[in-house]
Structure formats: structure tokens, C-alpha cells
């Protein structure tokens, strides 16, 4: 009986390690070779497993401690499954979460546990201290797909949207129920770059704007070159990338952020465009003109340590 239990435990251990190696290998596809992560997923898991008892936080009454720890472990093992939720305006926060989940998973896990315990925590150059309505809402968001069972993700998204403000949030600055789908949570290009600069230890180079596309002659070539230097985030027109109605919109604006994971020219002249959004990697074959038409902003993040 004991041998059987031990065998099961050993098998579980091997499966877990294999899963971890596989997920890390997948993630490293988007990280340039000279970028060395600050901490590893193993360290993050070790830290999370060392927390024997996490009490129910009085700051986050609707986030159960067990589920929070389970969520944080899932982030570490499957960072690419991190999902912004359906119909929300959390895509920018989700895209930039790729950085802490892959570059410093231990730092992110520690930050989230601090935020849960104390209702405030430091990350990068800032202190996040979410307002009461936001703290009360975390854990209650529903009909958002897997974000429903991810209160840790809800905490993180709501805290970021509550702290960082841009001109798009001018008329709706205070959170009210349902604001995760409104301008309260939306992110203009300058705000996105500001978040990258203040949250993570790295340099940011950005091209493009909210209403004007970057003037780059060979955009696919440029993006490919940028990917060699660091992580590349794109600000693009989601209505064109994912058609949602047959109506042709007269005004073209960017509304979505993705992480570029691969780009290359195909023999037929089209571009193989691989990116990460909505909790999965996606591949589309697009014409160079279409790609140029949908991309409004390119943000390059280079970690400082790699210099």
C-alpha cells in the first residue's frame, strides 16, 4: 500500500516537473536569448507552497485565500493561460502581465500575497493601494469565462485599472459595478507605456499613437528586429483582427493590446503573425497591408539587467 502511494506520488512529481519544463519552454519562445529572468517558476512555486496558512483578508472580503494561492500557482505553471475575461477592457493589463509571470514569477507571487494581506503593496516604482469599491468587487466578477474562477486575476486587473489613469478614463474615474467593461478600465497608448515603465524594471521604446499608425516602411521586418531586443507589445484595431459584425466602420481606432510572440514572411508574400491574447497563443496569416492597417502602436520592453 505504501509502495503504491509512493509510486503515485513519484509519478505526480514527474508529471508536475514535466509540465513545468514544458510551460517554461513554451514561454521562452517569446523571450530573447540574452534576457535572463530575475526568478524562476520553481522559486515561485516553492514560495507559494511554503505559505501554510493564509488568513481571509479583511481588505479583499470576496477573495478566498485558498483559491488565491491556487490561482497564483496556476499563473506560475501556465502563464499563457492568463485570461483577461470576456467583454472586459482588461486586455492591456493582461498583455503586460506576461512580464512578471515569465521574467519574475517569484516577485509577482510575493507582490500578490502582500497585496492580499495588507490591501496595498509595492511593485516597480509604485505602491498599489486599491480603493474600497475595487477591493469589494474583486472575486465577484461573473460571465467573463475563466476569469470568474480567478479572483487573483480580478484583484490584479482591478488594482491596475484603479491606479493608472489616462485621458480615456477622464469621465469615469471612480469604479462602479460593471465598470470593468467601460471606459473606466480602458487604456490609451501613453498610459500603457507609462504602466510598463513604472511597474517593471526595464526600458521602454514606443512608436505610434492612439490615432496615427507608426510610419515604418517594412513593418514585419521592423517587428522581427524588435523581437530580438526584447518583448514587443502591439496596440491594434481589434474590430479588424476579430470581425464582430458585417458593418464596415468608418472610423478606425485601436482598441486591443497583444504580445507579439512570432512574426515571419511566408513564401506567398503573406505574414505569419503569432501573438498572445485571450489566454492563448493565436496564429493568423495576414497580408502586409492588412497588418500595417491594424497596428497603431509598438512598445518594446527591454529589461535593465540584460544590458
Amino acid at each position, binding site marked *: 500500500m505504501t509502495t503504491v502511494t509512493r509510486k503515485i506520488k513519484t509519478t505526480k512529481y514527474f508529471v508536475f516537473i514535466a509540465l513545468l519544463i514544458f510551460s517554461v519552454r*513554451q514561454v521562452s519562445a517569446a523571450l530573447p536569448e540574452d534576457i535572463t529572468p530575475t526568478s524562476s517558476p520553481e522559486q515561485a512555486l516553492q514560495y507559494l507552497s511554503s505559505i501554510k496558512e493564509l488568513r481571509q483578508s479583511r481588505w479583499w472580503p470576496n477573495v478566498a485565500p485558498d*483559491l488565491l494561492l491556487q490561482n497564483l500557482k496556476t499563473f506560475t505553471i501556465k502563464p499563457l493561460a492568463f485570461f483577461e475575461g470576456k467583454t472586459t477592457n482588461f486586455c492591456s493589463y493582461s498583455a503586460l502581465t506576461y512580464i512578471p509571470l515569465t521574467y519574475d514569477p517569484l516577485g509577482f507571487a510575493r507582490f500578490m500575497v502582500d497585496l492580499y494581506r495588507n490591501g496595498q503593496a509595492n511593485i516597480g516604482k509604485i505602491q498599489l493601494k486599491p480603493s474600497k469599491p475595487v477591493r469589494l468587487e474583486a472575486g465577484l466578477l461573473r*460571465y467573463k469565462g475563466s476569469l470568474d*474562477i480567478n479572483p487573483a486575476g480580478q484583484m490584479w486587473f482591478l488594482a491596475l485599472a484603479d491606479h493608472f489613469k489616462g485621458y480615456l478614463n477622464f469621465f469615469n474615474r471612480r469604479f462602479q459595478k460593471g465598470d470593468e467593461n467601460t471606459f473606466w478600465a480602458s487604456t490609451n497608448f501613453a498610459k500603457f507605456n507609462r504602466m510598463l515603465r513604472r511597474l517593471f524594471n526595464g526600458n521602454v521604446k514606443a512608436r505610434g499613437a492612439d490615432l496615427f499608425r507608426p510610419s515604418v516602411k517594412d513593418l514585419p521586418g521592423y517587428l522581427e528586429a524588435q523581437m530580438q531586443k526584447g518583448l514587443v507589445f502591439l496596440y491594434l484595431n481589434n474590430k479588424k483582427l476579430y470581425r464582430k*459584425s*458585417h458593418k464596415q466602420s468608418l472610423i478606425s481606432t485601436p482598441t486591443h493590446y497583444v504580445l507579439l510572440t512570432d512574426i515571419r514572411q511566408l513564401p506567398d508574400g503573406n505574414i505569419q503573425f503569432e501573438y498572445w491574447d485571450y489566454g*492563448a497563443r*493565436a*496564429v*493568423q496569416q495576414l497580408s502586409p497591408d492588412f497588418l500595417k492597417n491594424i497596428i497603431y502602436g509598438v512598445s518594446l520592453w527591454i529589461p535593465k539587467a540584460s544590458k
Partner: protein
Amino acid sequence: MKKSIFILTLISGLMGVLGGCSYPRNFTSDFYAKNEQRLETIKDDFNRLYNQHPFSILFEEKTFTNISFEFNEDSIKYIYHFNIHAPAFTDSLKAHHYQAQEVQKLVENMRAIQCTWIANVDYYEGLKARRLTQMSVRNKALNSTLKGESYCTLVFFETPQPFNNKGIFLDRSDRKRRRQINGNVLKRVNDKVGYTITKKYR
């Protein structure tokens, strides 16, 4: 006298405009009753093929000749755009190990009923993951001169859903909440099928 004629004309004109803005009240129940067998066949065929190899289908244009086919692999989704009559579509289906003939038959059935999108969507009851089939249909009755085009999104649940006296689906895990799909409240067609009329098909 002239004044009252003018007011009457104005009121009737206004009512005409307002009438033109809305869709027939019983559209979905009538449409579903008329096409129940076809809709159920599409849903069943889709689910049978989906269980073998996940995917979703989207008709990108009103002409119903170009589709966006999403091949869902383990950790990646391939979103490819095809003309349904071009050999590239069949070749890609075969290359990704789909039953090409069956999928093409499904595409034809969708086209016949002007179904613009079909996909399986995850939802949660408490912490339990469940799946529903979502299907959007285009119909002339839903077009309006002023408002433009609307789509009827039909949602097929696996189990009967609770609903209130207004026929609005409720959340099984919290019956005070009205169940939503893409931010829209779901109304009842029958115990397992709900609908919503939206400006977007997904």
C-alpha cells in the same frame, strides 16, 4: 383643422420611424419554431465534430463565401481565412486532421440558414466549468434603416436553466443574478435554449 392633420401626420410618421427601429417581438420564438430541426442539426453536428477536434466557424461577409476557421490545438489557435469553394479550405482541414467532408456539410448548412458564427463557450456555475454552444443568425427581419443590422444569438445549454417570470434566464449558482452572454441578458426560447438580439455576432 390643418393643424390637427399636421399633428396626426407627424405622430404617424414618428410611429413609423420608431416601428422601423425595432424588430418583430416574437422573432426568435417564431424563427426557432420554424427552423428548430435545422438549428438543432447544426448544433449537434458541430458538437460531434468539435468533440473530435475543437474548432469554430465564422462567416466574415454578407455574401457567405468567405469564412474564418479557427483550428483549436492544445496551446495555440490557428485562425485561417478561406473561400469555402477554394481547395485550400479542404486541404487545410485534411492537414489539421479534421473530417473535411463533414465540416464542409456543416458549413453549407450554416450558410443555408445564414448562421454567421458557431462556437463552444466555457462558462462557470460556482467553480464548476460547463460548456454551451453559441450560434449567431442573420435575418432580414432584424435589419433596420436607422439602427442598421442586428443578429440573433442563440445559446444552447446542456442542462435546463432557471428563469424568472419575465422569461429571463437566471444564474443557477446565484438566482438573484440574470445570466449574461457577452454583456447581454439571455431570454428564454425553451428550458435549454436562450437568445439575445445584439449588434455583434460574437
